[in-house]
């Protein structure tokens, strides 16, 4: 789960990680009110959406008067912001964050993420703040400092020294401040089961202080159960409504831009099914994992969600029945076709336990829309043909 910048900054404040003063606003009036309270003389008006690149898309503006705050808040609130991370459809801005302008001397980059190869958190830092870190990593990898923290010992002094010397910070006072900053960020990362914390830019002010000018944070979904305070920060308007609805029924759904709806058990086979459709010259309309215990209700829900997508021309149900027997799934599919109006051809491949019985059930049901398939290759080929109207 990701959170907004203003929420990340609330958590920073809780951990003593310095940030500019700021207040969140839901309306233009509130934005101006906040600006008055903060005092100025300059403010930054920032769109709050879960995506990077907001500045380039026109979602971050520097205001030099209360009138400008009003003007920019007006512009930004309600706009559909398109950035390289939102996709072409963009995201509706419903909140703006009003923040004190900072006295920026240098822009740095700092993040804490899990290094999957080492299975430990790493702190990544760079003097090239304000830039896309992937670009920095590609063009000037020597400008990225990586410090691995073994969680069994936690953040030690030597980690801090590696970091500040790597960043070329020579002033002892500044060294101390940066080490303090990074150690607090590491503590936050561990305490909150964060998946990623990124500050870009982290600025050094004219007076040699380090402050988090931006803040991006994501958390381990599996750990949210023990963090009700984080769960309370969830903004459902940032989530895809279909993905969310699917999740409520234990289905894992992701919309794609193709024509063949997929309903599969297991994440790996679901991806493999998409890949096979693509290989056979079709295009997958979605990823959908119905989970290990597919039944009539989950299958019906799956059909319903897949069919919301107007691009879907055919559906490929690809189930490898293991513990769940195929004959039960076949009956589930028949029942589901009664619950939901399935108006496109449905290719069904059921393999594994009791597959012959399942095939018999589907054959005897004799539903015009249901096309049985013998294996994965056969099913994918039939689904591709059906989507082209050739079946």
């Amino acid at each position: 789960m990701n959170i907004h910048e203003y929420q990340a900054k609330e958590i920073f404040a809780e951990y003593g990680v310095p940030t500019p003063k700021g207040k969140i606003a839901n309306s233009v009036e509130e934005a101006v009110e906040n600006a008055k309270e903060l005092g100025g003389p300059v403010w930054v008006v920032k769109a709050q959406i879960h995506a990077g690149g907001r500045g380039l898309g026109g979602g971050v503006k520097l205001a030099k008067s209360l009138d400008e705050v009003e003007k920019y808040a007006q512009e930004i609130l309600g706009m559909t912001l398109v950035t390289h991370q939102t996709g072409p459809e963009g995201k509706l801005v419903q909140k703006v964050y009003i923040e004190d302008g900072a006295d920026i001397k240098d822009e740095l980059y700092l993040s804490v993420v899990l290094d999957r190869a080492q299975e430990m958190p790493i702190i990544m830092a760079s003097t090239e703040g304000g830039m896309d870190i992937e670009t920095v990593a590609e063009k000037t990898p020597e400008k990225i400092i990586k410090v691995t923290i073994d969680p069994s010992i936690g953040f030690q002094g030597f980690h801090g020294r590696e970091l500040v010397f790597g960043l070329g910070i020579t002033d002892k006072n500044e060294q101390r401040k940066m080490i303090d900053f990074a150690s607090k960020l590491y503590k936050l990362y561990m305490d909150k089961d964060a998946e990623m914390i990124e500050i870009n830019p982290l600025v050094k002010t004219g007076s040699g202080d380090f402050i988090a000018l931006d803040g991006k944070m994501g958390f381990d979904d599996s750990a949210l159960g023990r963090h009700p305070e984080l769960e309370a920060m969830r903004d459902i308007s940032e989530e895809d409504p279909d993905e969310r609805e699917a999740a409520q029924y234990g289905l894992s759904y992701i919309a794609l831009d193709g024509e063949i709806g997929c309903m599969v058990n297991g994440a790996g086979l679901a991806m493999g099914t998409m890949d096979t459709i693509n290989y056979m010259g079709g295009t997958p309309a979605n990823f959908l994992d119905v989970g290990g215990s597919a039944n009539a209700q989950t299958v019906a829900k799956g059909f319903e969600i897949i069919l919301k997508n107007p691009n879907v021309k055919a559906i490929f149900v690809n189930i490898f029945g293991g513990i769940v027997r195929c004959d039960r799934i076949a009956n589930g599919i028949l029942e589901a076709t009664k619950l939901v109006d399935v108006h496109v051809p449905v290719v069904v491949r059921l393999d594994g336990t009791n597959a012959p019985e399942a095939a018999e059930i589907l054959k005897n049901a004799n539903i015009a829309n249901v096309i049985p398939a013998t294996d994965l290759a056969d099913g994918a080929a039939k689904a591709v043909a059906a989507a082209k109207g050739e079946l």
Partner: protein
Amino acid sequence: MSILVNKDTKVIVQGFTGKEGTFHAEQCIDYGTNIVGGVTPNKGGETHLGKPVFNTVKDAVDATGATVSMVFVPPAFVADAVMEAADAGIELAVIITEGAPVKDMMFAKQYATKHNMKTIGPNCPGIITAQECKIGIMPGMIFKKGNVGLISKSGTLTYEGANQVVKEGFGISTAVGIGGDPIIGLSYKQILPMFEADPETEAIVMIGEIGGDLEIQAAKLIKEQITKPVVAFIAGQTAPKGKRMGHAGAIISGSAGTAKEKMEALEAAGVKVVVSPAEIGKAVAEVLAKK
């Protein structure tokens, strides 16, 4: 021969009396797995599925001599259970549970390693040595005995792959589902050399997916150490960037962890890479015919 487990392996079940634990332990017993007991705190002394229940893993190990534990406890208790197993001298913990917090696994795996305990999973179907020992949730009847070793991050792709291998007239020596989480126990890098050393295994199928770089590490190792033919499929060639594809670890972060880079690395290491899982069986038949 086989790897890691066989018909003599003594297995206990942590979370034995729970719904999932009970259902799958029974299936394992039916398959022939030598399940010698289970652990559920406060139920020590009872009998479940005809096997003794113990309060602690230590008690279970002392009484039964078990060396492997199959873990079915709820996600929040996985790390505790795994560390308890390591502390009690268990040699291999097979963690089936899905949804354990990543931070917990980070600590649990470190502790397990310190105690020389191997782990498989979490979020995996388990391990099966065909027609001898099933420790997990896979449908046993698919796995006919044979000369193909299988390693996979995905449960249903393991079944798909094994089924195709069997349909082509071959069989499985051992199949290991290593799990799709960001931090997992045994991976390709550790298991490939085991298959290389196993006289029964003549070819290896490895099934990977997007996210992380375990498959890239595997490619390096294959190039240097593996002489047996390897067939690979990487799921998620058509997956969008930045989206978690069902498994917690199946995500392309930025431009890293794509199927393409993994497929290229494996191909460069001499692996027969198939673009669709539907081709796994045929590819195995092909590489075995060449031998």
